[in-house]
């Protein structure tokens, strides 16, 4: 029982990270109808930026905030420069372009920082809590994720820019007629997604160690989470991410060897798409005729 609870809590901590990245994916999907396959590598690159800053002697949270800002601007720039030309192109072109981005970020990180594993500091001490049920680190990760979620929720719910972003995602033409600069909104969406991804990367790096390929598994879990929640639903993405985190931990502990973790994700994805293609909270995908 104790072990079960322990696994669930550490699953929640991992799930919080998947949830953040899933949220980033959902934001981009809602805004531009694209699945951003480069989301994980963008997060990884952001994490390297944070690592550089920390190594340069900045305090952790200072580096954290600067990284978020840089990622935000970087995400906006990527939308403007790389994504905009294929915004109305066929799906295949968009997929190829985001895959191209994935390769570019992966190789850039390898080029600049090499492929060796790097240790990444955690801002939270690693102390057991409640009779080793969970660690302070888990709590910290979950808390950071919750803060990010709360900030995002308030942004979209209460600010005019947030409202305009939702409008631009839903009906770009009408948004334009209201005087909303839709292109700018999409860029902000990408910027926010990149920043959220950076949070995920920074939170996961102490556990996984830093290397250019560290996010491929995380991205896979994030996709799974986003699909479980329904790729159009931010709330769903968060819940889906948590479900994936817990499932991954439990399956790895009790059912099959953890070497097959990715296969579990694969099976989950297929099952969700077959039996509940809109996920738990997603809206039906409208097919254009």
């Amino acid at each position, binding site marked *: 029982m104790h072990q079960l609870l322990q696994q669930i809590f550490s699953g929640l901590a991992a799930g919080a990270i998947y949830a953040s990245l899933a949220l980033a994916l959902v934001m981009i999907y809602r805004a531009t109808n694209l699945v951003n396959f480069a989301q994980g590598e963008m997060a990884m690159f952001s994490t390297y930026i944070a690592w550089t800053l920390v190594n340069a002697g900045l305090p952790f949270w200072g580096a954290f905030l600067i990284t978020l800002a840089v990622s935000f601007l970087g995400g906006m720039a990527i939308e403007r420069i790389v994504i905009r030309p294929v915004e109305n192109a066929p799906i295949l072109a968009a997929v*190829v372009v985001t*895959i*191209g981005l994935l390769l570019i970020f992966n190789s850039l990180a390898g080029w600049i920082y090499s492929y060796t594993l790097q240790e990444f500091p955690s801002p939270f001490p690693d102390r057991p809590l409640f009779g080793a049920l969970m660690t302070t680190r888990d709590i910290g990760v979950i808390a950071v994720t919750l803060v990010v979620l709360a900030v995002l929720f308030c942004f979209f719910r209460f600010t005019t820019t947030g409202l305009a972003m939702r409008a631009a995602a839903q009906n770009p033409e009408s948004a334009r007629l209201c005087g909303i600069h839709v292109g700018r909104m999409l860029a902000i969406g990408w910027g926010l997604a990149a920043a959220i991804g950076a949070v995920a990367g920074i939170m996961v790096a102490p556990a996984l160690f830093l290397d250019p390929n560290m996010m*491929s598994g995380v991205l896979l879990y994030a996709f799974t989470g986003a699909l479980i929640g329904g790729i159009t639903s931010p709330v769903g993405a968060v819940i889906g991410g948590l479900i994936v985190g817990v499932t991954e931990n439990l399956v790895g502990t009790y059912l099959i060897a953890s070497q*097959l973790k990715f296969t579990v994700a*694969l099976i989950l994805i297929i099952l969700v798409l077959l039996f509940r293609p809109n996920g738990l909270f997603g809206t039906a995908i409208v097919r254009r005729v």
Partner: protein
Amino acid sequence: MSESLPVGAAGKLAPIRASVPNAAKVRWPCNWPWNWPWNWPWRWLAGAALIALAVVLPFALSNYHVFTLTQVMIYAIAVLGLNILTGYNGQISLGHGGFFAAGAYTAAILMHRYGVPYWATLPPAGLICFVLGVLFGLPALRFEGPYLALVTLAMAVAMPQLLKYFDTWTGGQQGIVLVKPLPPPGLGLDRDRWLYFFVLAVLLLAMRLAANLLNGRTGRALVAIRDHPIAAVAMGINTPRYKTLAFGASTLFTGVAGALAAIVVGFVAPESFSLFLSLSFLVGSAVGGIATIGGAIVGGFFIESVPNLANDVSDAAPWAIYGLAMLLFMYLMPRGLVGTLGPWFVHAMRKFRSARGAPK
């Protein structure tokens, strides 16, 4: 001075055609080189010249380059498989490396455990991958657009783990080391050159088969499903059948390529079949022309030669170039080299011929 009819017709048509920049409006997919509007002697002569070049080339090159060319052809077969599915049928696969691995391991296990001769492993490898592809294609009928890409991506990520897990068959992390096949005696060919011809024969056969498949009714059905799924159903095209068929045919090609890779390299290991292998197929496809047959060869060249040229700069450089190539091709030449230049060439040929008043 009275104009003869063909010239007059050409004169009428020319301005309309000339207004189409870089043949953008020319029908695609381009089945280059099979749709060259040449009369039969020229067409066959050109084909024969190309094949003759391919036959002579290995004797002019070093062993290393012959081996490289063999790899190019293997990649070309794999990319051809991807083109059938993703280019012609619009089902995006980011996981063809998985089927490549399945083919490679089938061949390796058959050769290593059961002593099957290398050439006899191709049909079972193709068959197994065909079945796997059809099995994968059935649920894929319900995954649209980016979802299929996601599922196949997940498969590509999971593949090395799976290969390691079933280690009684796959040899786990260490993989399987194979004995490189001997050339048949009496031909006077060394091992590398023999394998080159072996792969060349398979490549030619694969291209011929792909052309037969794609240049007729089936090809039109696949393209119709890609471009307008609902209209395709309305026209009476059995969409599920064609989509699974495309999946099976596609993975068959890629699986055979995998088997060839196992034979030629003489070694299979899980880490050679990572996500990046799948993505490099996509790179080759995008560069050569995703809905072309000939583009697969260009794509194979690209995938194989970039690492050879760029590895000196940095380990990461080839992937950076792959990524940049994907972006640039999607922006500037979304139909790839062959898909863009092929129709342009065909158009130029037609114009040349009609200007000379040649009968159709």
